[in-house]
């Protein structure tokens, strides 16, 4: 028999989970209805009944290292059927927030992104960077038509963003190594690498998500956002490499395949995010459970796409306002990238690893 667990509740953790959208956590009486109705919970390790109790009891290390947190898609089936109004779905969301914050490296970044008070500083950094670029960076000869490159030299931007992306990858890796250590310590020993392929297949298809009963629009919104994001990722990387190597020049012609893909992807994200926002706003309890953490990510994402589309339209009709909008666009992209490991964005990475480590992607 396993060694007895020494119970030492992390009371600050309990209070944080309650504050972070799990306000009804303590109402759970452990009937297990949630686990029974959850379409996603594996039979041999059902959730979220157990996670509710572990959270109630302040067993932070245990619950945050539980891959089950990331197997949940927050569809709300459990919340809809909870006889006690404990809203397990919202608690799982709050626990995911706590997990992102807990494994964040460096920790102060995690704390800063999670804290509404730090928002000014978080945006001040990109604002200063892009103001400096606009003000002092050496620029090429002005073109006849107004182009963003006239104010923001593209190769410099690309270099900056590739640099930031590299940094983000390092930070993600750092955070993930913490998470993996915690997973291993908690006894989840399945090899991650062989699990990655099925996990990614699952993520791209959202097949598990399709089993959720409540809030069916959510899956579509999420799927559109994900695919749009991937599309932009492909375009961004290709165009970045192209412009830095001089093979491409922006602005691309509207008919270029990259441009078409980029616009389609942007539209998909916009539609997806709007759907997700609508789901969130339709359910009053969910609206209340939504926190700064969620809004931070969702609004930045929406902002990036909205300003991107707006900047393109303004460029096409050639008004100087396009520079201001583009500036905002750049600031938001920067924030989206740099703060990804500490914002809701991180769920993409954690979920992939959790799926791989728990084997849930492998038909589980």
């Amino acid at each position, binding site marked *: 028999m*396993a060694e007895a667990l*020494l119970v030492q509740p992390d009371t600050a953790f309990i209070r944080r989970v309650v504050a972070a959208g799990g306000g009804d956590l303590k109402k759970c009486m452990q009937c297990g209805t949630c686990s029974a109705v959850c379409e996603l919970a594996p039979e041999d390790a059902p959730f979220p009944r157990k996670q509710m109790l572990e959270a109630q009891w302040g067993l932070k290390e245990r619950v945050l290292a539980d891959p089950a947190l990331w197997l949940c898609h927050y569809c709300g089936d459990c919340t809809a059927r909870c006889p006690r109004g404990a809203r397990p779905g919202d608690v799982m969301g709050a626990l995911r927030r706590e997990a992102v914050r807990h494994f964040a490296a460096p920790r102060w970044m995690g704390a800063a992104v999670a804290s509404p008070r730090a928002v000014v500083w978080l945006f001040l950094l990109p604002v200063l960077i892009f103001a400096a670029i606009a003000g002092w960076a050496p620029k090429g000869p002005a073109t006849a038509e107004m182009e963003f490159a006239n104010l923001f030299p593209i190769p410099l931007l690309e270099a900056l963003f590739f640099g930031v992306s590299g940094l983000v990858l390092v930070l993600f890796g750092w955070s993930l190594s913490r998470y993996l250590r915690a997973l291993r310590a908690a006894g989840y020993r399945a090899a991650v690498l062989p699990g990655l392929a099925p996990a990614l297949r699952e993520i791209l298809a959202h097949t598990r998500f399709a089993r959720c009963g409540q809030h069916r629009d959510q899956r579509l919104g999420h799927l559109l956002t994900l695919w749009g994001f991937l599309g932009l990722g492909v375009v961004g990387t290709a165009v970045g490499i192209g412009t830095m190597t001089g093979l491409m020049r922006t602005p691309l012609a509207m008919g270029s395949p990259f441009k078409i893909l980029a616009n389609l992807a942007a539209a998909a994200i916009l539609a997806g995010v709007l759907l997700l926002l609508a789901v969130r706003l339709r359910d009053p309890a969910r609206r209340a459970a939504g926190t700064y953490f969620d809004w931070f990510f969702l609004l930045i994402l929406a902002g990036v796409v909205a300003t991107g589309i707006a900047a393109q339209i303004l460029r096409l009709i050639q008004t100087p306002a396009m520079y201001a909008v583009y500036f905002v666009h750049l600031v938001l992209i920067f924030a989206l990238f740099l703060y990804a490991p500490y914002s809701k964005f991180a769920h993409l990475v954690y979920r992939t690893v959790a799926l791989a480590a728990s084997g849930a992607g492998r038909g589980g």
Partner: protein
Amino acid sequence: MAKKVGVYLCGGCGIGEALNLARLEKVAQREAKAALVKTHPFLCSPEGVQLIRDDLAAGAIDGVVIAACSPRMKTEAFQFDPRQVLERVNLREHVVWSHPPKDEDTQALAEDYVRMGVVKAQKAEPLEPLAEEIARAVLVVGGGLTGLTAALEAAEAGYEVVLVEKEAQLGGFLAGVRERFPAAPPYLEPAPDGLQAKIQTVRYHPKIRVFTSARIVRTEGQPGAFQVTIEKDGQSVPVRVGAIVMATGWKPYDPARLAHLGYGAGPDVVTNVELERMAAAGPIRRPSDGRAPSSVVFIQCAGSRDPDHLPYCSSVCCLVTLKQARYLRRENPEAAVYVIYKDMRTPGQYERFYRAAQDDPLNFFTKGEVKSVARQADGRMAVRVRDTLLGGEIEIPADLVVLAAGMVPNAADGEAIRALEDAEIKRVKGETEAQRAEAARKAEQLRSHKGTEILHLSYRQGPDLPTLRYGFPDSHFVCFPYETRRTAIYAAGAMRAPMDGAHAEQDAQGAALKAIQAIEMAVRGQAVHPRAGDLSYPSFFLQRCTQCKRCTEECPFGALDEDEKGTPKPNLYRCRRCGICLGACPERIISFQNYSVDMIASMIKAIEVPGEEEEKPRVLALMCENDAYPALDIAGLNRLHYDASVRVIPLRCLGSLNIVWIADALSRGMDGVLLIGCKWGENYQCHFIRGSELADRRMENVKETLQRLRLERERIQVAELALDESWRLPALINEFVEKIRRMGPNPYKGF
């Protein structure tokens, strides 16, 4: 005896269409020798009833037989002077509604019922109610919340009340708690006890005499006239009361038996009662070092719902724990409170209190089984719990461990005390060595009952109330609330069943009303539940008594005392009129005015048994009139048909079955006897507790009768039936008759 019996046949409800009433009239007149026979198409109408009243008033008859619907129906219409004999013949439910109309066998069935009804009426005596002087006073034993409430209720209803409390103060257990768990909306926070006002009201109530620091040394007599001797300050005070409410409350389960949960492992393991006393005296401190505890583990069901300890749930411990958790959390906002439960039981609105406790971030709840409670080197306790909801074994370090132990009734087991006395005598006076050894062993087993009596009853069956289960003197609560097996002594509060204050108050009201009812029934000479209103009572022809003591031992209500020789000394106000004594008596010397061995035997003899050549079996069905007989009525109401060979005689209780009736029936040539009583055993439904069980035991003796008559054992069948099982009856009856048919006729036919 009714000499001039008038038979009134009703033709309504389909009886007239299904039966040949003219032939029935002839049977009543010529064969049964009725003084008068009349038929009316609608007998329960005012005109029909007036017909009977006129004949009675004119003196034409002194006994009435109404052949119409079930005796359970139209009781108000057919109500005459109780001093005139009244018998009902059930032609509707048991004949025309359950058998084919205009049928030879149906007609024969009706004719037999008329013969039986008339002969019973002819044998019956008019009823003369008991009329002794009844004390309109209630004794309440115990001055806790239940006793105070019962005393006030009875006093406010106008009855004199005597309240006896053994402690110097009134208020009982609840007077010593810090707070009570909420009993009023919104049920979220514990509330102050509110007991003091009630104590003052009782203290100064003009109709209540309070004896504190007092005890009862003797209770003699019977309902309506109990002679109770109270001892206070070395002085004996006699009081006369009509009924008694037992409100002696509870005591905590002996914690010395909870060593497996750490009790005794150190000073920091306490019971919930000990914690409550600590809380009432001041802030809660660790007994070992006097510091405020920062981690407290409550172990629920400590010794409860455990076959080795208390097998039952005490119903309050969960709420007490929630309340005490509230104390701890209020005193120390950083204190963590853990609750290890089997199930949290917070019925009704108390669920809100549980929810409120759950919302506290530092209250931790889990189901689990405590594996060990041990003291660690640092002086703290370590509680190990297995089978938790967390999915494994956990260990909780605790400054204080609280055992939520259950309630044990403050009640004595009168029958056990009596058995102990008998065993002690037999230990000395037993005839053989083996008998003496057996008695010694039994006495040892019952040792703990010595000196536990509270009422000191002078009853032959023991000096206190008999208990039903787990030492509680309750009767069957669902059917007979507050009843004990001692008439006019009612149990209320935690001594009846584990309960909280709010329920104890309701219980006290109910028991006080039952006590008042018992007194008023006694004033009118009527029986109490379940034959409420019955004016008949047993009489004993003692010249022929052989002092066999069967009646005094079998009476479920201890109505019969004994003189030195063992002759029964009836206490008629204690009697519930079940007739079990009548069934027990081998000399057949016990009879009621309208229910006796001879009367039933005469009814059996009135049944016409067809000869062997006719191939028509006759079966006698003796049915408990509380469940089986009404169930047969319901079968009729639902038009369920069954074999017309069966002749039903209702018995007050199957326990009143005298086996001579079976011998009578079989020697008359009847082919089988079916006995249907209530369910007995663990979840008995017998209205007289042991009646159907006793009947079953009497079957042993019947076997001898059958052997003597050289008849098959299968000719007699005993069945148990609940009131809601009327649907079973047709098959039960038909299968039995079929079995009898296959067996062939009784060879005694025609003798």
